[in-house]
């Protein structure tokens, strides 16, 4: 006798504990196996691109904070670089070093969150997440010293940053730099020594490198598939060509590889920050010649940077006025979801949110 079965479809989200925000998936199951996935976006759409058209170039910086609220500094950086390219501003060296420090600290913080949430998605009751968050708190404290804000920093300005970091920041940063390598080791040990984590993450949600490139997936996900593509290295913006760092690659392209790459990247970021601290010299943090009301000439510019989640690009069109004529964001979180269906179909329900979380999604950026 054969039992007659039929697939069952369930809505996950937008209010679900593991959707990393307000994301909704319409998933069809055959037993525990996923047979179809349909993502539904837009629950956090705030029309940032439209809002940007009504604000001055400096005011738009605050909008970029709210896109990927886990990595505000890199959002600022991408936007500012695009504005600088558009307006032809040459930034001050100290400002550039400062924003590189900020961006790399932000990368560590973002990867910590991603790694912590992996273990959370795997079903641990939050303890590993708390340990990741503890380190992130220290980074947020550093940001607070730098610019007075913890999450929505708005620290960067065209030509550099808006204020120099105070003296006590450097002491705190030194302290942090002494602590963090041990914490990253601890994190890696936690991830790599738990048999349950290895069994759950290895060989799950494997993507082919060629497919990933075709689908525009960038960042740690792509490097976990063995594609050596890092914009900091390939298309050096700021002073990334003056620092030495490796690009960790993994070949498995599964959930474990993605997190392995993230943890290794934290180490590389630490290296970069160390070099930035050595290289930074006293001086102004933004050129005096840049007015507060930037009026770039007519034209357009696109700058993509390597943000913690992938390539974050800002396409700005100027009509010569004080505000962008058009501001389009190339959001890595959204692009990385292109292959969501390919990733999830054929895996088990329990792995659904782990694979989904391994793209390191942030709904603020997806919906903007």
């Amino acid at each position: 006798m054969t039992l007659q079965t039929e697939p069952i479809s369930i809505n996950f989200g937008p209010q679900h504990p593991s959707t990393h925000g307000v994301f909704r998936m319409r998933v069809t199951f055959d037993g525990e196996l996923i047979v179809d996935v349909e993502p539904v976006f837009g629950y956090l759409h705030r029309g940032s691109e439209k809002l940007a058209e009504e604000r001055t170039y400096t005011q738009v910086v605050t909008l970029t904070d709210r896109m990927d609220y886990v990595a505000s500094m890199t959002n600022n950086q991408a936007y500012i670089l695009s504005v600088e390219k558009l307006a032809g501003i040459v930034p001050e060296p100290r400002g550039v070093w400062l924003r590189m420090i900020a961006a790399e600290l932000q990368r560590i913080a973002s990867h910590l969150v991603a790694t912590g949430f992996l273990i959370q998605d795997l079903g641990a009751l939050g303890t590993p997440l708390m340990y990741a968050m503890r380190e992130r708190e220290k980074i947020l404290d550093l940001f607070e010293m730098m610019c007075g804000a913890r999450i929505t920093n708005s620290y960067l300005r065209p030509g550099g940053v808006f204020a120099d970091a105070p003296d006590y920041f450097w002491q705190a940063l030194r302290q942090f730099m002494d602590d963090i390598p041990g914490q990253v080791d601890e994190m890696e040990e936690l991830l790599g020594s738990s048999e349950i984590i290895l069994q759950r993450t290895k060989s799950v949600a494997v993507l082919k490198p060629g497919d990933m490139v075709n689908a525009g997936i960038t960042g740690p996900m792509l490097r976990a598939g063995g594609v050596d593509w890092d914009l900091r290295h390939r298309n050096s913006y700021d002073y990334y060509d003056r620092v030495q760092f490796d690009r960790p690659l993994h070949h498995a392209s599964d959930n474990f590889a993605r997190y392995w790459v993230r943890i290794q990247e934290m180490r590389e970021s630490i290296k970069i920050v160390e070099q930035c601290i050595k290289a930074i010299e006293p001086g102004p943090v933004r050129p005096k010649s840049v007015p507060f009301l930037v009026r770039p000439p007519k034209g357009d510019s696109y700058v993509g940077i390597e943000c913690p989640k992938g390539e974050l690009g800002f396409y700005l069109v100027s009509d010569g006025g004080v505000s962008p004529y058009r501001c389009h964001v190339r959001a890595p979180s959204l692009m990385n979801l292109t292959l969501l269906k390919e990733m999830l179909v054929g895996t088990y329900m329990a792995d659904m949110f782990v694979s989904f979380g391994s793209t390191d999604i942030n709904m603020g950026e997806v919906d903007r």
Partner: protein
Amino acid sequence: MPTFLDNSWFRNIYCNLVENDSARCASGGWFGDGILPNNLAWLAYTVAAFVICFAILNALLGSVIVYIWAWRRVFARFQRRSGPNRWGPFGMLTTVADAIKTMFKEDVVPAEADRLIFNIAPVLMVVPVFMVFAVIPFGAGTFFVDLNVGILFIIAVTSGSVLAVVMAAYGSANRVAIFSGMRSVALLMSYEIPMAISVIGAVMVAGSLSLGRIVEAQDVPFIIVMPLGFLVFAICALAESNQTPFDIAEAESELGSGYLNDYSSMKFGMFYLAEFAAGIAAAAIITTVFLSGWRGWWPIPSQFWFFGKMGAVLFGMMWIRFTWPRLRPDQVMGLAWKGLFELTLINLLSTGIMVAVFADEEAPGDLFSANELWIMAAVNWVVFVVSIWAIGKVLAPKPYRAAMLEAPVQLYPVGVDEMPAVKAAGAAD
């Protein structure tokens, strides 16, 4: 062999009430004979039963409240938080406040729900857990009833909670809950079997199903005599009480509490209560069967020994729960059928052979002496190490690196220029 009611609290209360029942009260009660004449023995029986039920329920509710408080405090310590610390000393009254709040919340029943089943499920969830405590000896002479089939009773009663979970899942008419219910059934059914078989080792050595007798037999705690049995039983107890890494039914990060999804107010409170009471029950059973129950050294009273050991077991369970991730459902089933089932059979075999060797033909009721138990322990530890190693070999997944080497992934061509050093892959393995 102890009789049905010998020296239990039930018997003491009964014998203090009834006037003349030489069959059941050979030496009378604590205060001599009672006042009720013999033809009102049924009344004494009923009163005793009510008193016992009242005592069990309240003691258990109280201990659950303390346990939840301790759970949250320990959890907070694990996470470097301070936990509940506002209400009462060290926040001890937080749970009480929570319980009161839960009672006053609105009780929502989904429109599509099967109301009868939906409402009965929480009750059915709580009852079996509480029934377990009827047969557990908390100390020397401190037990409610010493059933001669005690361990069988426990296994029979606890499997009833499957029904409650399925009813809750079905009754809420919620697809996520249905998933959770199916998972729960598969999990509990699978783990009942190794659990029951692993207990049989202890039963064979003790020569009885009675929990009191099992405690008496433990001149050497059974955790030392049969480590394999303890391991399997502890894992199964974790699974039965829905703890990480086996909490696939609740699965907060996937199903968002699963079958509890649609419950609110005190119905949810009852599930919550049952969950924590099940944890206590599991710890109590482990303590009784494998950690020599209330036995300890003078001058600390036996009750303290029992609760101390139980607390240690609970702490171990909490530790696992707070730190471990969850297994996938198929891995959970695989562990039960491919790993634990074999291990428990090995344990049964080795213990059974030794029981047959050491058994005294002339005095069938005798317990094994400590020396005999130590010899058994030595043999069982060898079996334990060998079988764990062997099962680990068989069950271990293919190593990552080997699999990678067999099928090297083609690197995607990037850049024609010469690139600086690239960190090698897979160095973490």
